[in-house]
């Protein structure tokens, strides 16, 4: 039994959150055994930008109460090298590939989406309009009118399913979901990380300073699960398109709650850091609990 999602047939309901699993690195670390029980029903790439990015200076991680604040800064090879170097390897994964892209203007996004459209290895495109670490993504995503316009501009440029990843740092996430739908999105995904700050442990000698090299960061993990559930519920109640729910999911019980409030798929992010097999286990347990 498979799960239909925007025309894709998936083995189960669990995928990864963008930027929380590097399938290419994981294959090197874990070898062929990874593919035998690949954790995700579809693989979502890290956010890809037009130009290469080295990412933020370290430290990039801060452990919070039941969560993680990260300020990674979207390091990636840039579109060209992603397509040339990574796509062949990602195409060999035992799961369809969703490429997540971010641009700082509608023109950039169009260029990214068109490039993805040409590549058969890519099954769907996810638009990151919600990354709190980089100004651009935030601005587009938190203003429903602007978001609708951007999605409307990008929409005709690809026949592939278009998923819009919403920002949680907004007053009315349902309005953003409706805007994405009105612009022509095939699905929405949420939540991205909540904007958060960490200060360096104070020493007698030093004054206060930011811990994260990138300044502010984003909070993920169990700490945000209740917030995620509320936002996924709010969006799923209003939109007609499928919803990918994520934020703090650690087990099949949590995943089931995302489905219960209206999600079609569930993405696992931070929990994969604690166990790379988390996605596989959750996917299996979900099917077992209610086939």
């Amino acid at each position, binding site marked *: 039994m498979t799960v239909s999602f925007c025309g894709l047939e998936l083995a189960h309901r669990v995928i990864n959150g963008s*930027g*929380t*699993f*590097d399938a290419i*690195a*994981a294959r*090197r*670390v*874990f*070898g062929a*055994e*990874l593919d035998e*029980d690949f*954790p995700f029903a579809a693989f979502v790439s*890290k956010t890809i930008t037009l130009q290469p990015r*080295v*990412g933020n*200076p*370290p*430290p*990039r*991680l801060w*452990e*919070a*109460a*039941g*969560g*993680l604040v*990260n300020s*990674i800064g979207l*390091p990636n090879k840039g579109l060209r090298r992603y397509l040339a170097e990574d796509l062949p390897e990602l195409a060999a994964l035992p799961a369809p590939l969703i490429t997540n892209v971010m641009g700082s203007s509608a023109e950039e996004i169009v260029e990214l989406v068109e490039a993805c459209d040409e590549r058969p290895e890519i099954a769907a495109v996810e638009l990151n309009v919600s990354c709190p670490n980089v100004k651009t993504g935030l601005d587009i995503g938190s203003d429903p009118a602007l978001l609708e316009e951007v999605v409307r501009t990008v929409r005709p440029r690809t026949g592939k399913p278009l998923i819009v990843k919403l920002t949680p740092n907004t007053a009315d996430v349902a309005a953003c979901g409706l805007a994405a739908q009105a612009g022509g999105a095939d699905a929405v995904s949420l939540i991205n990380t909540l904007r958060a700050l960490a200060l*360096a442990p104070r020493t007698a000698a030093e004054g206060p300073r930011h*811990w994260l090299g990138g300044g502010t960061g984003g909070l993920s*993990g*169990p700490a945000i699960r209740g917030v995620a559930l509320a936002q996924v519920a709010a969006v799923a109640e209003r939109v007609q398109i499928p919803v990918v729910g994520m934020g703090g999911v650690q087990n099949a019980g949590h995943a089931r709650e995302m489905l219960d409030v209206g999600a079609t798929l569930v993405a696992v992010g*931070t929990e*994969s*850091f*604690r*166990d*790379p*097999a988390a996605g*596989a*286990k959750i996917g299996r347990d979900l099917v077992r609990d209610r086939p």
Partner: protein
Amino acid sequence: MSVAPPRRRALTVTANERLGAYTLLKVADPAGPAPDPGQFTMLAAVERWGGGEDERPYLPRAFSLARFRHGEAHYLLEDVGPGTRRLCELQAGERVWALGPLGRGFVPPHDDRRALLVGGGVGIAPLAILQDALEGALARAPSTRKRTRPPATVLLGFRDRDRAAGASLFRGATVASDDGSVGHAGLVTELLAAELERDAHAVVYACGPAPMLEAVRSLCELLRTPAQLALEAGMACGFGACYGCVVPNRAGGYLRVCVDGPVVDAAELTRVEDLP
């Protein structure tokens, strides 16, 4: 490079031994792959990983394999925060989640250079298993090779006597201590400088605090002695997923310590940054 099973596994602690200021945690891992020296494991207690300082720990923590024998892994731990505190209190019979072995380990000398192992503080851990491997290789090597490659020299630096107890992990080591309570009063890098002055035909294997590694790096650069440095960085995953564990590389970008390291060739770095 040893390949890890793609899931964390629950392992049983077989012993918790005090080694001065450190804790030697022994964990049964009968089915685990034998690690390369320099590789590490992400560890977390199965029970009660959380509820410490600032409601932490939450993520697993990275620890070098200090020894691996007969399906038993040894870790040398220093209690520096909520994660290490929890692991240090685990007793025989309690369980840990383990993911690994992870990362790139040390590359043995491929010519007749002698191995110079330089460790500082709890950073001595991966050098113990490296000594095991080098001596094992020596023992197994054809007798011609045996004559040409001398045994590894081990230089260790500690803050005080209590920490210097960690030296007992090694078969023969020269020790320095900051407070002069054991061995040479001063830095281990002073011992290294003397050794290299005596005979620079060596490969240096170093692990320890960033300032020590930077001293090793710049000394070896100066003397054109190849050096392999085992780095540390805050990690969330240990397998390349989070992009959190970076250090600047020579090319103006970043290395992920967990997959590009933890052991890197000193030539890859401009300097070893003392990140907070």
